[in-house]
């Protein structure tokens, strides 16, 4: 089942990329998390016909791709998860919102087409921004940032535990489904007769594993709390990085930069 292989591959790949020792990777995780959220908020806050303003927002992903020396190609496959639904929702805009704006030859551009386009671009930008966050910040660093903003420790701890065991369980599912498909040639998925037992067995095994993990924790003095070595302190460069981006993003949001350039060169 290539989907499982892909998932494991993707996990390892992201971890490798995020773990690189580059200056963008070393910026305080809270700064990167905050910037990502601010960026996405600004992107989705653009009006549905404000295509030119929105295009200007490409500046952030473009810059980070270059700064972090990331491959744009890798990020593309993440788009296919979110974009279909966005497109389905957007595809109807041209049908319902049909005020013509201008003609290109015999083709009439309508407001609906513009709003569909902005919707798709918003989708692309927000996915890219999340990708960039995870490509320059490891999950542990993000969890550290979440603890800094007082997300309850039980949620953060469990994200860490989940992350620790995801690849192991995906590997287990892969072995089970492979063993299944070897003995059931020609079947695309899991036959309904074994839905319960196949997943149920895996669930029981996971529960046993959890039990053993709990025992192992208790034997080493577990008292309900977790401590992690991840420590970051804010340094001057973090604050500068944050401030510079904040200014750039706000300027691009509130000053019609793209249109201004359009006047200059048009």
């Amino acid at each position, binding site marked *: 089942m290539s989907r499982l292989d892909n998932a494991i591959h993707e996990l390892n790949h992201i*971890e490798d990329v995020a773990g690189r020792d580059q200056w963008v990777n070393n910026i305080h995780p809270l700064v990167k998390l905050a910037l990502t959220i601010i960026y996405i908020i600004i992107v989705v806050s653009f009006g549905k016909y404000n295509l030119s303003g929105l295009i200007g927002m490409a500046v952030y992903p473009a810059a980070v791709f270059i700064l972090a020396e990331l491959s744009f190609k890798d990020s593309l496959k993440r788009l296919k998860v979110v974009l279909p639904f966005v497109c389905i929702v957007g595809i109807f805009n041209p049908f319902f919102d049909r005020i013509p704006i201008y003609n290109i030859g015999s083709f009439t551009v309508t407001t609906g087409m513009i709003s569909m386009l902005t919707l798709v671009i918003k989708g692309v930008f927000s996915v890219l921004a999340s990708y960039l966050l995870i490509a320059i910040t490891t999950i542990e660093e993000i969890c550290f940032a979440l603890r800094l903003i007082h997300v309850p420790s039980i949620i953060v701890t469990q994200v*860490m535990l989940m992350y620790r065991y995801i690849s*192991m369980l995906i590997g287990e599912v892969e072995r089970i489904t492979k063993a299944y498909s070897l003995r059931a040639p020609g079947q695309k998925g899991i036959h309904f007769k074994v839905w319960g037992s196949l997943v149920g067995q895996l669930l029981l095994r996971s529960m046993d594993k959890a039990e053993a993990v709990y*025992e192992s*924790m*208790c*034997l*080493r003095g*577990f008292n309900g709390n977790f*401590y992690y070595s991840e420590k970051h302190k804010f340094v001057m460069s973090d604050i500068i990085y944050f401030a510079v981006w904040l200014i750039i993003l706000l300027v691009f949001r509130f000053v019609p930069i793209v249109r201004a350039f359009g006047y200059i060169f048009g």
Partner: protein
Amino acid sequence: MIDIKNLIFEYDRGIRVLDNISLSCKNGESVGLVGANGAGKSTLLKLLVGIADKYEGEIKVDGLDVNKKNISKIREKTGYVFQDYDSQLFMPKVVDDVAFAPVNYGFAKEEVDRRVDKALTQINIEHLRDRHIYKLSGGEKKLVSIATILSMEPEIILMDEPSIALDPKNRRNLINILNNLGQLKIIASHDLDMIMDTCKRTVLLSGGRIAADGDTREVLSDKELLESAGLELPLRLQK
């Protein structure tokens, strides 16, 4: 250090797993605990640290009765290495996992760091310190899981099948490490060759009873005894 008298342990449905076991181990000893699958090796180890309870008879660890009241004191002195390293290692990074016990036992940061460094150097895995656990190989995970209990600086080390799923080189490495640890060790295994290399004394369990307890060479060269307990001679003694 460890004193067990007339220990009987049954599962809920009245299946007797351990039947009248008496055993005592001294400080610094290395004891091999051998027996076929289901002979009760793991159960015996689990009883010592209180993961399994409701036994009959007497178990004393360092003079303390194994019961609810004493269990946290006993666990602080005892390191238990699980057979499955994925259960033993649950933190994202090696350093976090090795630091887990000392941090939970309330040591100051400097002491935690000292213990982590010491545990990692003791088994030559300083280079793994900042690595992610899920990316380590099986052999590396096994070594890290030993480091996670060495950082507790335990007086007693209990190991369940430490050599399982290790390749020959890692297995040899593990044997050398075990021989360098001075604490009381009880190693449950059916890798009899490893027991021969690491333990002076061997206890043979068969059907929940102690079938033999004595010098490793003597116990492990008794072909009839081993076969009656569902084992075979160690490979090096087979001709």
